[in-house]
């Protein structure tokens, strides 16, 4: 079930979803769009870097095993150091919570509820 739109102002918040699995990427992106966010999608870390260099984002949600020159963790590290204002979230089929516990990057283990990711993004971006 899609999350309900919470506020029209979320449309000004821009989220990048990075995942090599098109169905998972599209599904999460649709959850975020239904909540009111503007969402862009990247198949790989290379595509993500191209989009990050082209437009401003408020949050990046990346799969750990995303295709490309770097995996999701390396991409999140790079984003935190280059764009520290961007919220980073990693999703993965394996538990990476230990690796991420000393960072500002949030973590969701697959299979996750899209609504839970939406709730976290709203909490962090709209009501920090």
């Amino acid at each position, binding site marked *: 079930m*899609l999350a309900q739109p919470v506020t029209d102002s979320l449309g000004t918040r821009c989220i990048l979803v990075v995942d090599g699995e*098109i*169905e*998972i990427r*599209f*599904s*999460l992106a*649709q*959850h975020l*769009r*239904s909540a009111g966010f*503007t969402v*862009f*999608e*990247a*198949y*790989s870390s290379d*595509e993500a870097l*191209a*989009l990050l260099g*082209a*437009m401003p984002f408020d949050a990046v949600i990346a799969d750990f095993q995303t295709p490309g020159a770097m995996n999701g963790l390396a991409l999140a590290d790079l984003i935190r150091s280059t764009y520290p204002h961007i919220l980073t979230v990693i999703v993965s089929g394996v538990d990476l919570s230990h690796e991420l516990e000393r960072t500002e990057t949030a973590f969701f283990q697959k*299979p*996750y*509820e*899209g609504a839970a990711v939406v709730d976290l993004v709203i909490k962090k971006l709209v009501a920090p």
Partner: protein
Amino acid sequence: MTVEINQRSDDTRIILILDDDAIARSAVAAYLRECGYTVIEAASENDARTMLDSPKYDIDIVICATSDVSSEDRFGFSRWLREHHSHVRLLMAATIEKTAKLAADVCEEGPHLRKPYDHQNLVAWIKRLRA
């Protein structure tokens, strides 16, 4: 976690855009979403096939960007689409200008029946993003 978009309202149509250029694909997809379409973004023929073959997604139109590098794969994909999903309308474009014009034409027959902005502005936006 899947979104059941096949349980859609009658006026929601689904477009799949196949383009390995992330910036152009994202910009055209954003434009078409403003026209009221649900847009699926595919970076490869394999991804496009996955979504077209899935019973969850009732795709109406495929916009396929071709380039010198990708043209052989794209024409193979178009043959596959005609053989396996003959009801799906296929639109092919070799340049971003032509892709933007196709998107604008599709927009005018879409749910909102009007363009959010001129397709030349879409081309200009893509060029700015690439700069």
